[in-house]
């Protein structure tokens, strides 16, 4: 009886919390502009799927945005995960005071907000402003901390016996890293990596300051430019079509990874 009550409550809660927002986006992205302006939840009286999505793909800069988003997300995630794992190995095993001090700075970078204005200044000084390379380097530098922090805790929880045995057997350091460390860290790197993908894919704030011109715009930037392009009243059908197309790649990633993400997170891969 209590279980019935609980799941009824959860279902009732999930309607406004999850279903209605998603339904609003989907159904209104199928309506012509005037009908979508009513922001109703009913089915379209006239369907305008092809037109809406055609406009978003064509004028909304969606394809450029998609390519640009991929172009920055992939290198950032790969760099953060690999460099973070390598650094976590060093921080977890070394007793050098210098490295422990460096580890403390990594910890600070998690807590403190990134300073965006001086970053623009710095990238300009390095002739990296406006383009995707400067953005990739900045995001990597600002996101490494959290992965290092989580993975270092993981490394420390394991005794180094396995690594030492492999080294005695003649394995080189890179071999030990690839064959022992990376598999060992896989749960935490996987969860960290997925959170990072969500975070980078959806980043708007850094992109707004660091990426110049629509040729470099990632999906959130192109959504914002597209939505702000029409002053005052939004073209809701087009905005929602863009929102749907922007979110779909992540939903795809999530569907593939959800079992391990949920399991990883709820079993405390992020404990600390």
């Amino acid at each position, binding site marked *: 009886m209590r279980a019935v009550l609980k799941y009824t409550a959860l279902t009732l809660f*999930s309607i406004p919390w999850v279903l209605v*927002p998603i339904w609003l986006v989907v159904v209104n992205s199928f309506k012509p502009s005037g009908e979508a302006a009513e922001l109703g939840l009913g089915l379209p009286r006239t369907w305008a799927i092809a037109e809406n999505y055609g406009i978003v793909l064509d004028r909304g800069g969606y394809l450029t945005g998609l390519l640009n988003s991929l172009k920055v997300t992939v290198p950032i995630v790969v760099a953060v995960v690999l460099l973070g794992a390598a650094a976590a190995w060093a921080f977890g*095993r070394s007793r050098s005071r210098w490295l422990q001090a460096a580890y403390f700075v990594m910890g600070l970078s998690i*807590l*403190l907000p990134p300073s965006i204005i*001086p970053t623009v200044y710095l990238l300009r000084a390095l002739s990296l402003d406006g383009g995707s390379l400067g953005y990739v380097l*900045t995001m990597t530098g600002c996101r490494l901390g959290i992965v*290092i922090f989580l993975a270092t805790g993981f490394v420390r929880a394991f005794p180094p016996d396995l*690594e030492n045995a492999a080294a005695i057997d003649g394995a080189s350091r890179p071999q030990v890293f690839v064959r022992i460390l990376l598999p060992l860290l896989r749960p935490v790197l996987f969860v960290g990596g997925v959170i990072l993908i969500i975070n980078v894919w959806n980043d708007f704030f850094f992109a707004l300051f660091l990426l110049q011109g629509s040729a470099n715009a990632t999906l959130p930037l192109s959504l914002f430019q597209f939505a702000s392009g029409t002053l005052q009243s939004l073209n809701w059908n087009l905005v929602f079509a863009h929102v749907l197309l922007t979110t779909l790649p992540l939903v795809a990633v999530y569907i593939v990874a959800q079992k391990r993400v*949920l399991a990883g997170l709820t079993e405390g891969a992020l404990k600390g």
Partner: protein
Amino acid sequence: MVMRTRAAWLPWALPAIVLVTVFFLAPFLLNVRFAFSSWTSFRAEITWNGLENVRTLIDQDLLANAVTVTVLYAILCMAIQNTVSLSLALALQRTSGINTVFRSAFFLPTLISPLAAGYIWRGLLAPDGAVNSFLGIEWAWLGEPSTALVVVAFIDAWKWSGLITLVYIAGLNSIPKSLLESATVDGAGPWTRFRRVVFPMLAPALTFNVAVTLVGALSAYDVIAATTGGGPGDHTRALNVVMRQQWGQGFFGSASALGFTVTLLVIATAVPLVWWLRRREVTG
């Protein structure tokens, strides 16, 4: 063995150290200088000017309001997010088929970008939108000074609640069952068990979530940009919103001062909070 020496470990950490130093630490230190410097698009030369930026921002009535809005926003966000997430976590703690479906569903908003979340709720909460027609009222949730900030904070909380729920579930599952059982044997009811056992044992997850949500919300920008743009009037004009405006107008020094204010707020709220929650964690 050789693997313990500093020289042997340094190369493994070096790329990460360099990237964090150049792209996080250096801008962070530069900000301390720029915040107190005259630097505009009209005069590229950067010169020390003490508290001039701060004074200008105060004279323009921008700073005090932005700080108030930002702090209120962060507190609202943290409160809404943690209340919803902890309740969901308590309901979905056990790993079972049906719970996994619900966990998955409640995680979905986390996949949506904060910007998109802003547009979605702006649509739902429009004066003639679905929420109002369900409630049978006509209220400009984002246009009225009394509700705008709460609603914007709610949207931010909505976006992150799925992730925070999972961290709470992890915390709940790390509580030893024996502890709960012995509490039950000692005659503790569900509420006493929650207050005396579960809640204190949740301290690590609580520390993490409260700190993360507060710190994150102090840097609020995306949701506000997509919904109110800082309005009505200046009721949702958080520090980062003013920073972007100052930057856009070419007042780079003032923008840095606003960014630095966010940093100070983060230090002022997060450090004592983590310290206090950690201490509670130890004393139980």
